[in-house]
């Protein structure tokens, strides 16, 4: 699994806002056009992104191995025709190029994921989305990061306990509803304790945020993001 790793790469030193901007610009550019020439240019940008965050291509592809299967299926499905000649390779070209551009978008995301700590993402959200909505969104995202491993452990415990009592030999509806009831009631019990703890610590609408600053390094990256975003108009 690809997650944040501390490092000293160029991508690690960038402001998270410019990295988010590049991802969005890249997605706009990739989804707008499907010509081989545009895809070649985007491949170069994706390669630079991976290099800047020091993510090896093999590792990124391994992380997205299930997605690769899916991306391979779309062209195959389109090439198969009902009736002679059964296989029409020409029909597979456009879906194949479409699959390739989705892969490029995923690779650029991999570079962001490895190079950005949660704290920075949260600060970027709170500084970009104004007001109370931004506060709740930033805090909520940080809480999801914190509680994901806790709830994964809860779900594992529940499944093991059910299996130990031969509950895994019951029908699928009973298994799923038991997991749902126990998982949700545990999550809500944790939420009620969390809400008490937040109030005890004066959870407020206006806390001081961690510092974020654009550096000189961010200027070309932001220019690239803007360029990618307007590229469909050229």
């Amino acid at each position, binding site marked *: *699994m690809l*997650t944040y790793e501390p490092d000293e790469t160029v991508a690690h030193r960038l402001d998270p806002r410019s990295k*988010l901007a590049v*991802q969005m610009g890249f*997605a706009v550019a990739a*989804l707008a056009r499907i010509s081989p020439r545009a895809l070649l240019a985007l491949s170069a940008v994706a390669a630079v992104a991976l290099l800047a965050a020091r993510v090896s291509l093999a590792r990124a592809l391994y*992380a*997205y191995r*299930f*997605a690769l299967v*899916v991306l391979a*299926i*779309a062209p195959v*499905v*389109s090439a198969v025709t009902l009736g002679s000649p059964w296989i029409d390779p020409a029909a597979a070209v*456009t*879906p194949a190029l*479409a*699959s390739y551009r*989705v892969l490029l*978008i*995923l690779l*650029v*995301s991999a570079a*962001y994921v490895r190079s950005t700590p*949660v704290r920075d993402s949260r600060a970027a959200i709170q500084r970009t989305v104004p007001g109370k909505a931004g506060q709740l*969104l930033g*805090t*909520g*995202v940080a809480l*999801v*990061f914190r*509680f994901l491993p806790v*709830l*994964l452990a809860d*779900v594992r415990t529940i499944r093991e306990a059910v299996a130990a009592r031969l509950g895994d030999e019951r029908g699928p*509806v*009973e298994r*799923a*509803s038991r997991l*749902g*009831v126990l*998982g*949700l*009631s545990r*999550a*809500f019990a944790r*939420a*009620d304790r*969390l*809400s008490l703890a*937040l109030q005890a610590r*004066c*959870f*407020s609408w206006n*806390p*001081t*945020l*961690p*510092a974020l600053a654009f550096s000189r390094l961010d200027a070309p990256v932001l220019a690239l993001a803007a360029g990618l975003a307007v590229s469909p108009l050229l």
Partner: protein
Amino acid sequence: MATERNSVELVDADTVGLFARAALLAALMGAASYVSIPLPFSPVPVTLQVLVVYLAGLYLGPLWGGASIGLFLAAGAVGAPVFAEGKAGVGVLVGYTGGYLLGYLLGAVLVGLLVHRSLDRLRDPAETSLPVLVGSLVAALVLIYALGVVWFAHVQQVELAAAIGVAIVPFIPGDILKIVTTIAIAKRGVIDPV
């Protein structure tokens, strides 16, 4: 650093309670994506995520249920491995499953609106009549399917019929199962509504 100099403006207790539940439900949604059965001939894996979408609408209502799924999407976009198969990043939001992800958000809002018929006053899902429950869950599923398949066909540049064959048909049995499961959970009435 921009230090806040105004006096502290506390978040009121009701909002903190609902917000904490929404955040934990978003994390549960992430955990549910690891409870999955990959199907060899279909691009979208079968996970329990849709079940959590229904529960979000039922137990948190349209506003906070939608907020909960929104938190899940935002956390995934900035790098939490919460999407199916532990994927993360903005790329997944615009990738071939992007339509389903948007459908989850709108689906939770729709279930909340149809069951509670109010933005903030929530009723106990155990006391909701069976036809209303079934109708709202099926409506949300149709919405998720519609957004999912149209986006899938657009991103992958395949015909709508082919997209329906790959991205909807294999999931219908699993999704009917999840509707039955949700109703079983709601009718059991063991989870405290807010």
